């Protein structure tokens, strides 16, 4: 192949110039953008470091010291802590009082304390997801542009769900802690209200993309709003609803752990205590249990979602 001498007509010159201008402008913008981002990064890092109790470079050499308490004297203590088996290192302190937390069901059969706490956390997540689902489904049909019974009602429901979504969970938890006493019920109310907003939004977005032909068919035979929603719309969207609800369960397990740490009960509270007092074996047992549970729930829910709606449940397109 021979490279022919380039022919410089005016048109090609102009095109080339325009292209060059465009790329250099673009490069300038990219550089500026990245530069700005780096400045912001450095600034915020400095700010975070300034405001923190301990400073980064001051604490960095000690980070391994900090981890040293995590290493238990005897690795078997991790299992003992997990299953509430008496430890030979028991010296009467809270660090090794493993059998104390046993919850006897009948006879000698007991549920280890941490499993019971994990169960509390899971139940908080499940019940609050259920609350979210039960309210989000009717709300989503009201809030969907194509299905709403009345536009004004739609606007009200949409705004209400936005408020529920943005309202900090911790404030609701704190408010209800003062009313129903501190504990899992306040956590359920807080996470449940948040779930209504979060699920409602996802649900009505699904509703707005449904196939309207079934709805029109039912409208033609004179079905009322409830009948149309029940027989034309719900069957189309239910698998997607379920998929998002499963995803919400994953999120809510994490949320209920966190709310637990600030007083909602469950495993979060125990973990916070254990870390703040530096109980190595207990902390490892808790982290292990929490990690395994969350991992298993994620995997199970991913499997179920794949079964319900196929690969689209994992689409990453923006």
């Amino acid at each position, binding site marked *: 192949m021979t490279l022919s001498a380039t022919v410089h007509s005016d048109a090609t010159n102009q095109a080339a110039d325009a292209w060059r201008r465009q790329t250099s402008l673009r490069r300038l913008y990219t550089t500026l953008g990245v530069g700005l981002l780096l400045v912001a990064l450095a600034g915020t890092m400095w700010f*975070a470091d300034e405001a923190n109790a301990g400073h980064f470079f001051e*604490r960095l050499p000690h*980070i391994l010291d900090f981890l040293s308490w995590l290493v238990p004297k005897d690795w078997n203590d991790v299992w003992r802590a997990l299953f509430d088996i008496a430890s030979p290192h028991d010296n009467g302190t809270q660090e090794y009082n493993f059998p104390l937390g046993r919850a006897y069901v009948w006879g000698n059969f007991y549920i280890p304390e941490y499993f019971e706490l994990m169960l509390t956390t899971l139940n908080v997540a499940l019940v609050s997801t259920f609350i979210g689902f039960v309210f989000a489904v009717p709300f989503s049909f009201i809030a969907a542009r194509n299905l709403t019974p009345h536009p004004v009602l739609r606007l009200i429901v949409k705004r209400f769900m936005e408020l529920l979504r*943005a309202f900090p969970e*911790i404030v609701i938890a*704190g408010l209800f802690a003062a*009313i129903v006493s501190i504990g899992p019920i306040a956590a359920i109310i807080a996470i449940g209200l948040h779930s209504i907003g979060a699920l409602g939004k996802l649900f009505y977005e699904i509703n707005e993309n449904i196939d309207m032909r079934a709805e029109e068919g039912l409208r033609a035979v004179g079905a009322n709003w409830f009948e149309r929603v029940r027989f034309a719309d719900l069957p189309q969207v239910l698998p997607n609803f379920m998929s998002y609800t499963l995803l919400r369960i994953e999120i809510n397990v994490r949320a209920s752990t966190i709310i637990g740490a600030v007083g909602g009960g469950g495993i979060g509270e125990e973990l916070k205590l254990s870390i703040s007092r530096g109980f190595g074996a207990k902390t490892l047992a808790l982290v292990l249990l929490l990690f395994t549970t969350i991992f298993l729930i994620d995997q199970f829910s991913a499997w179920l979602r794949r079964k319900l709606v196929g690969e689209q449940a994992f689409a990453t397109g*923006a």
Partner: protein
Amino acid sequence: MATMTADEIQAIEERFPQVFQRPMHKRFGPLLMLAGTLLYLVYAVWFFNLPQVLRESHWERLPLFLTQWISYDVQPIFPLDAPQITAKYPRFSVLGADPHPDWVKTNADGSVTVLVAGETRSVTFTRTEATIIANGMTVPVSMASGKPVVSGPVPDWITAHDEEVVADMGFAGEVRVAADRVKVRKRFLGWANFVFDPRSPFFEKSAGEVISLIVSGPELKPGTSNLALAIDNIWYNSQWQHGDVWTKLLQTIVMAFLGTLLGGIVAFPLAFFAARNITPSRLANQVLKRFFDFMRSIDMLIWALFFTRAFGPGPLAGSAAIFFTEIGTLGKTYSEALENIDEKPREGVLSTGADNLMVQRYGVLPEVIPVFISQTLYQWESNTRGATIIGAVGAGGIGLKLWEAMRTNSNWANVFYMVLLILLVVFIFDNISSFLRRRLSRTIHDYNRLQAERS
């Protein structure tokens, strides 16, 4: 209306067996699921001991707390044992050190009238008797016998205890009459001293006065300009702590920003090694993907607790917690985006003999960058909400302040102030992020459309 004959019905049933003769598990599946859910709920009610918790809860506090979000009260006490009745205000009253509010009047005969809500809801008292006026009724109370006694019938808005007579005036407040003192609680709508607290020289001055003082007044505090003094007084307002609240809010925003951005920076190169179409090594893919899963599953709370212990409480711990979680989340989403790319541009660049880095730069990056940015923005947005809550375990930001204000149970107005600020921040960030993401998704959409047209 036409009705179908039995034959027609039968014919339809035969034509669509998949509708009318469904297998058992499909027919009863939903019913079983419903029954299972109901059973679970019964179990949950038992597990959380719901009836007892509800019996012991104090729902009457809810409206009280909610009114405290948007109102404040002043509670003067009038001791009756001194010869002259004077009002005593709590030490840190919102009215300042020496208040003389116009709703407390000393009459010519020595009696005192407190207007709880105008003349129609008020109390007038001397050392021996009080007259409570509310709801169109006038109720005299006599303290002459050493105990407060309601003369005549007791209306339902008054509770007569042995030592005290309590008159409930609804939102406006209440009056408590005892033999040796009268206590009044008067509630005002709004937030007290939101701008200047009682210690400030600008306290109780109108906006016009403050502005004229700032523009051309004599220096209130020698050596400082009035503007600087005003700003200082607002910033260090002892009741609202604007300075502290805004700094903590900024910390929360910074935590989300720093954590997400650093997570993105670290996840970016790792994602290329985790994507099976870019790095052909199964081992590297699997190891990195399990690593991402690990970082995600550890949970932001655990990271937050660990880093709070390592760095001490503050935004550094919060940023680090978000950073570690985001490596997992963003790494996973980035690598999934990379696995979904169109292979053609890559092959094209590869065929020109470009080296590996060049292939990634010109064959892969243009396609995934909008998706990456969009996902990072989404995470940033959701972390801005999440940062509030991990703050409460000590990881810095407004969360801890919020939690403390709630735990003391006294300062719901401050809580509401912070909630409003958080809502505002979340609202602004939602809009910025969804605006940017919409722009980006248009780019992605255009790209996809061009691809479709070409093929």
